[in-house]
């Protein structure tokens, strides 16, 4: 069991198909505790589907997935205690202010006095740069702010595993970089494990210890390793295209001139 203690998430030959349509199959990787693990891939490759399997919202049609040593199908409650999730849209509760959104998990799962809950929630919001917006409703803030508030809510109980679905999409580069810094700091301070879906190359190189790349045509994973390794030594054309797209776009610019 000592091995499973160091493994935060274990994905073993997981696959998903809807009807006869295969989204992906044979996806196998494990995320070590304290690792920042990035899931990459083009649109429709099944990144969000894989995330849904990991957080126990979707039952894998093949293979098995364990989070913190708990099976996502049979021990979904235990899995939920291990994870904090930031959904792509933010998924904030529209009838609650940002402060109340962040306080909700604290109210449900701790016995802290109300003032302490508010204090903690305010600090979480300040951590994501929303210290001045605590009393606004989700309908009164921008999309980027909603994302940051959703991260604050996912952080509310400092879960050991944080799952972020495209955190920097829709954010300006400076805020996005701040978020990357926050991820690394939280990891350093708490030893949190992060599973992040992102397309931002800068962000991947800044935060990812390792990444897995899914592909729609291959119906599964096409690469697994550190970003540096994938950039330098992958033979797969899609992987090379993804990691060298800056160079490619420069070539295109040169050609067009």
């Amino acid at each position: 069991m000592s091995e499973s203690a160091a493994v935060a998430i274990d994905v073993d030959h997981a696959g998903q198909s809807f009807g006869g349509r295969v989204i992906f199959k044979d996806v196998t990787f494990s995320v070590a505790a304290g690792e920042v693990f990035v899931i990459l891939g083009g649109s429709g490759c099944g990144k969000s589907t894989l995330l849904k399997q990991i957080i126990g919202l979707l039952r894998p049609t093949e293979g098995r997935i364990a989070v913190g040593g708990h099976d996502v199908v049979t021990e979904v409650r235990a899995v939920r205690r291990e994870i904090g999730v930031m959904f792509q849209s933010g998924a904030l509760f529209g009838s609650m202010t940002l402060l109340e959104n962040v306080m909700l998990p604290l109210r449900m799962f701790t016995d802290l006095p109300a003032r302490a809950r508010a204090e903690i929630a305010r600090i979480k919001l300040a951590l994501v740069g929303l210290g001045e917006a605590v009393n606004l409703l989700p309908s009164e803030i921008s999309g980027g702010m909603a994302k940051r508030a959703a991260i604050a809510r996912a952080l509310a109980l400092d879960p050991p595993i944080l799952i972020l679905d495209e955190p920097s999409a829709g954010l300006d580069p400076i805020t996005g970089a701040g978020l990357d810094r926050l991820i690394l700091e939280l990891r350093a301070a708490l030893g949190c494990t992060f599973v992040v879906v992102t397309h931002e190359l800068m962000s991947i190189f800044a935060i990812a210890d390792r990444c897995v790349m899914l592909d729609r045509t291959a119906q599964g994973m096409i690469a697994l390793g550190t970003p540096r390794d994938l950039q330098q030594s992958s033979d797969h054309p899609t992987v090379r295209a993804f990691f060298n797209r800056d160079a490619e776009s420069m070539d295109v610019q040169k050609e067009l001139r």
Partner: protein
Amino acid sequence: MVEATLDVAREDAGTVITLGGTLTATALAPVWTRAVDAAKRADGSLAIDVTGAELVDTSGAALLLKLERDHEGSTEWRGLADQPAALMARLREAVPDGAGVKVPARTVSRTSIWKTFIIRVTFFGETILATVGLPAKMRFLRGGDFFRLTERAGIQALPLVGMMGFLIGMILAFQSAIPMRQFGADIYVAALVSLSLFRELGPLLAAVILAGRTGSAFAAELGTMVVNEEVAALTTMGIDAETMLVIPRMAAAMVVMPALAIGIDISGVFGMGFVMMILGFPPAAILHQIQLATGPGDLLLGLFKAVVFGAAIGLIGCRAGLTAGGGPRAVGEAATSAVVGGIVVTILLDGLFAVIFYRLGL
């Protein structure tokens, strides 16, 4: 899980707060208030000893920061490991103000009654303009929409209408037969119930059903479209939302209402007849009474009212949806507003018709 522990001691130089165990969100509850009080009351220097703290998460670091800031004076840290120190540094940076986090007052923006009234009148005017300008904008109308809406608002409502009408007819007949019998006039129950159904209750009950089933559905559907920015997308594409969304719905409501009213009329008469037969009257006598008391004019009057009620309910449902605010709550409010507004306006219009028809001698 190891709970957080707290010990407060007085030393020569000042107060020492010793925190140990697990300083995480789920474990802090027993010590938070006492620790904060101790830090506030401490005079002179304050020493915080966290040598025994095994795990400090952001909630724990928030408590440590609060202790440091609530104490008026210098704070000495004992046994603060690198990990919580780094986390606290991050929190200090995020919340730079030494006095704690300021919470700006919550401002609630409310729409004034006058503004609401203007919005409604404007919407009414826009719909009239869209109807007048319809010939030029026929391409924005989708026939399929109209038939789909008609089926949902009309055909699918018929079983409910039949059941409601039958029960209302029965209830009316029973209730009026009791006093009428005292005068030996219980045969006139047939005339009374059929006349009130044709002129009043048919269209009114149909309107209540339409407001509850269809007006709310219009509001929820269009409200969700507003929240999802689908209406904004239509507008930016140059498509007239009034024409594409409101007119088919209003037309569907106007078309189905006479059918629903007739449904209530017929099933109500059957309900009444059922009770009358139980009371011992033959069907021929009941039919004869209905023929004597009512004419095609009464039925047409009711159907005319039904069309107007349908237009009002359709319009109010669409207005509630299209002027919805943001968020899921707005959709719920729009649906409520559609049902309440639809029923209130129906009754107001019915009162108005009563006066007009009386003056006209109809």
